[in-house]
């Protein structure tokens, strides 16, 4: 871009000089053409437009189906900041299956009710605001939960958990169907922090998708991340004890660490099958 601008300036200078020299030579000159009708300029502009347009189209096409920064309005204003940040509730308390299953399932209503049977109002925390800056009444949001749970705060003992209705949250992190992603593999076996992919959840009120979840994004992480290799008998995952070659290479100093790509993390069928 910069080069182009410099070139344009130089061309302008050149043409002015030429004009001067022509005048000096007394060559008859046609009517000067305004720059917007100057066909050279038009041609250059159209090329620039073409290139830039093509770039934008390609960028748009790549972005199709991606939803980075997706932040839908949820049926209940649930603040991760309040729960995970201020109150320091462990992620796995609610998303426990992330350790065991491919899904980090969204907690069921009864999980919410474990605490909210007692915590019936939002009082102590900071003020909450939605995207538009409107203030959110935390207590009213808890009330919404009670509606789903069929819970009457005035009559807590009469609550029948089996009458709860599921809350239809809007799913934010969507992967295409041809991708197999297992939370257990990453969280449990790989010891990857939730925040690595989901961002600083404990600082977010409403959840937003911070990663673009593109294949390139996955692959880059697989290229760089180190596996829980058992470099010695005290550390790491014994699963990797069968990788004799790596153990030898590490001993001999040929290799200093084992990353995901070394154990096949870039292979297609690790995620697509």
């Amino acid at each position, binding site marked *: 871009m910069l080069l182009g601008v410099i070139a344009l300036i130089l061309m302008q200078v050149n043409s002015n000089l030429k004009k001067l020299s022509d005048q000096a030579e007394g060559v008859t000159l046609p009517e000067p053409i305004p720059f917007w009708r100057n066909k050279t300029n038009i041609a250059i502009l159209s090329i620039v437009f073409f290139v830039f347009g093509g770039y934008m189209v390609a960028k748009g096409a790549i972005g*199709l*189906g991606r*939803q980075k920064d997706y932040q*839908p309005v949820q049926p209940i204003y649930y603040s991760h900041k309040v729960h995970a940040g201020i109150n320091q509730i462990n992620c796995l308390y609610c998303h426990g*299956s992330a350790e*065991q*299953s*491919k*899904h980090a*399932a*969204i*907690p*069921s*209503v*009864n*999980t919410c009710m474990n605490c909210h049977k007692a915590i019936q109002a939002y009082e102590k925390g900071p003020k909450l605001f939605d995207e538009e800056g409107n203030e959110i009444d935390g207590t009213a949001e808890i009330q919404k939960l009670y509606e*789903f749970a069929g819970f009457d705060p005035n009559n807590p003992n009469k609550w029948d*958990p*089996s009458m*709860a*209705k*599921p*809350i*239809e*949250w*809007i*799913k934010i992190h*969507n992967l*295409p*169907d*041809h991708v*197999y992603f*297992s939370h*257990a*593999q990453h969280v*449990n*076996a790989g010891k990857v922090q939730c925040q690595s992919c989901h961002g600083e959840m404990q600082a977010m009120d409403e959840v937003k998708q911070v990663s673009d979840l593109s294949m390139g994004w996955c692959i880059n992480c697989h290229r760089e991340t180190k596996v829980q290799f058992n470099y010695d008998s005290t550390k790491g*995952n*014994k*699963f*990797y*004890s*069968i*990788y*004799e*070659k*790596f153990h030898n290479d590490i001993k001999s100093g040929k290799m200093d660490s084992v990353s995901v790509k*070394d*154990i*096949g993390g870039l*292979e*297609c*069928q*690790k995620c*697509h*099958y």
Partner: protein
Amino acid sequence: MSQKKYWQSFGEVNESEQFAKQQQDEFREELPFEGFDDKGLLDAKAPRRDFLKYLGFSTAAASLAAGCTIPVKKAIPFANRPENIIPGVAQYYATTFVQEGDVVPVLAKVRDGRPIKIEGNDRCGFTGGGTSARVQASVLDLYDTHRLRFPQQKVGKGDQARFEEVPTFEQFDKLVADAMNSASGSKVLLTGTINSPSTKAIIAAYPGLRHVQYDAVSYSGMLLANEASGFGRRLPSYDFASTKVVVSLGADFLGSWLSPVEFAKGYSVGRKIDEKNPSMSKHYQFEGYLSMTGASADERFVCRPSETGLVALALLSAVSGSGVNGIKDAKLKAGIEKAAADLRNNKGTSLVVCGSNDKNVQVVVNAINNAIGAYGKTIDWGKPVNYRAGIDSEFEQLIVDMQAGTVGTIMIYGANPAYTYHDAAGFASAMGNVKLSVSFSERMDETSELCQFAIPSHHYLESWGDASPKAGVVSFIQPTIYPLFKTRAFQTSLLKWSGNDTSYEEYFKQYWTRELGSEASFNSILQEGLQDKSLPAAAGSYSSATLAASAQAITSANAITGTELVLYQKASIGTGTGATNPWLQELPDAISKATWGNYALVSMTMAKELLGVNLLNGTEKESNNYEYYPQKPVIKITVGKQEIELPVLIIPGMQANTIAVALGYGRSEKLGRTAGGIGKNAYCFTTRTETGVSYNTVATITDAKRKEKVAQMQIHNTYEDRVEVVRETTLATLKKHPSVIPDYRNHLEETYGKSQDGTTTDFRKEGTLYPMHEQPGIKWGMNVDMNACYGCGACVVACHAENNVPVVGKSEVLRYHDMHWLRIDRYFVSDANNPDELKGVVFQPMMCQHCDNAPCENVCPVAATNHSAEGINQMTYNRCIGTRYCANNCPFKVRRFNWADYTGADSFPNNRDQQLVGKLDPVVEQMNDDLTRMVLNPDVTVRSRGVIEKCSFCFQRLQAAKLEAKKAGRPLQDGEAKTACQTACASNAIVFGNVHDPSSAITAVRANNTNRSYYVLEQLHVLPNVSYLAKVRNTDEIIEADSHHAAPAHGDNKSDHAAPAHDAAKPEAAHH
């Protein structure tokens, strides 16, 4: 659509009627769905992305194309998560497959509330965790769109008659009760064989109920013969595992006879060879047509089906040392003599089984078994089996009574005489004289159509129950999913109608708590799936009282000279129960490799004489015209007044004047798009003889002078002497020349594997210009023992279920568009001079060989297929653009292309309605029904149209196993990662594991079987990761190395299996 309506009413039913029960029912929980907007569970159009990957990988593309917006997806968690269910983690429930008396203890894999796969229960001693194709496919039956969805009542008369829903069970009970009260005459319960102790107790407790058991294919001859021989009207346990010599007189014990899973497991013990001391069991088969069991026989002799009795008698006399009498055919005679000698020499470890339903024949067989000391050894009367209990005469008496009008009420469960009975019309008219008829059938089968009421029973995966396949064994059935439809266990109905208001579930629990003494033991059986008490073996009390009379009856029968027809069951379809299952319909028959329909198997002689198709010694053109076109000549088969027309398939090893037709086809259209109109019903050819229903008869055959297409998945029948592909030999040869295969492999090593300095050889490393890739961790490998493969197809169906392999329908199979990831190649080995003279049959399971130097990988332009460090040939569907180059370049032809939108995973909507070319069968639509799709494995992508797919070594299972090991922080143990085909196999023919693990089973099997182990097309240096063990027939024939072969490599005898004349290749084709 009516279908929708009932889905919605399903929710209502739950609330009103069964609400109380929901609390206890672990499967009742609302499942976590995405995008089900206030409709019923099954109405959700796009349930959980992860669960049903059925939308495939192009959903996003399609919706983007449509609106350029990203659809909002919802994530709906459980309202209350059941404690033991983690979304995304599979649960296994021990239950039992029960069908028509067959019992196979199984584990049902349940993912997010849906059973999606059946595994054998390896705690079961007699099946050893084996399954059959029908067991594997049974999970699909659960989601059959043609199951009855609610209780219903017939209204109108004659042609106007139709079934209408009865809204509640209460109303239904009232209707039935009223009708029962008004119907005079006896109450009859007609069932198939019932081997559930609790059900039997309910029936016994039903006041005034007459229970008649009727088997679609009768074993009454055997039951009666055993009674006559003093054992009682029972069937014994057969111990094939300790049998050294087995003689089968037309018994298809590996495919359809009695309990094939159990027998295949036992049989395989004797078929596996220890190379240090090569020996194996010896199997003689005498039969009229080529059965699946006959295909695995070591020595096979053909006789007319009507001669079975004579053969049995001759065998008896030979075993008793009196020589062979009454057999004219010299070859057959010699065979009997040989078999008798072997039986005699192996007293106590030999066994004779017979498939005949003729009491007299079975009496003679019992005499033989007595003579060879089988009782108490290979035949165990200490553990009689309960697989079949129907007696022909009892059912006949019932019909007589029905005709007479003395039967007021008939309730039918698990029996379908309107289809399977030889006099179906007689049964139908008798039904007309019964005042009240109720069917408990899951489907609107031929008999249910005749009934006034139908109250569908649960599928076994939805039911509680039990089964006692044999004495001392009880196997529990427990539900794995809340009933999909408004169905009720038929036992509950019986209880209710007999005035007992307990549900069967309660009754069952009470019954077993009582029987077992405690709830703890009940729960422990529920946990384990079954209880198997060891009972001492017993010889029973043999009596030869009726032997003389039976022998007399056999010898006095007139010899038949005309054409004989034998009716058989396919391992897939069985008596017809498999016909509604698309996986089973598309499973090729072991012998004919044909799918979707029945046909007449005829001998080459008959084809030549009757149809002018000369495969015996005709021109090559003639045989090509038969082989390369699916249109086969049609014959008209006439037995008495019954006649049907069927296309023929010409196969070797048939008795010259015998044709064979499979039962189970030609079902009613009401059973759905899969079964209806496929093939012809051959039950009309079963006949009643003096001793029972006969499955072979005299028939008149004429050429119908037209052709019909038969959908075969393999058209060429011999392996063209391609020893690099198929290795088969005889036991004697293996003993004499044990190094034929190692010699060939050494030859490759020596010729192509020498290192630069010539000191070491390594074919793998030196056979290429390139350096080898490192495989630092696990390396997967598979071994298939061809000697333990009998072609049953359980693995094939297991593969379908595990990997979401699409069903393509007959029209597409005809176009060679089948999608099977795993196929069982079947090769006939015939005499060089007489192609009809079958010497053996080789079954070779063929799946992706995961070659380390895979030719397919190299040619993919977009890198959609490549190699993993674990030795897996990876196929990335979402990268594939469908050039099919890889499929062309695969020497094993195991890659499958999605020619049309078989799965509904395509970007283009409504593209299964092509009319001009490639019209798809309705079964494809059926498989894409939202209900049917519930069977899909959520861990495996459903492939869209236009991509290649193939065996992945069940990669999802390997990943899951590795993840478990990682979670536990330990190395992967051998046997943790198993493929679906491996677990399905009753005979453990498939071994799979990490070949880098020196202690693994796969390493051991390769190391211990060097004389039989080989890789298919090893000379290509594609380095497959699937090894095979050569097929060995236990005969004395010595196959000498052929002088034509320059290298010892081709150590195989021309005379043994040179290309028969009926193949495209003339013998010179095999000329190396």
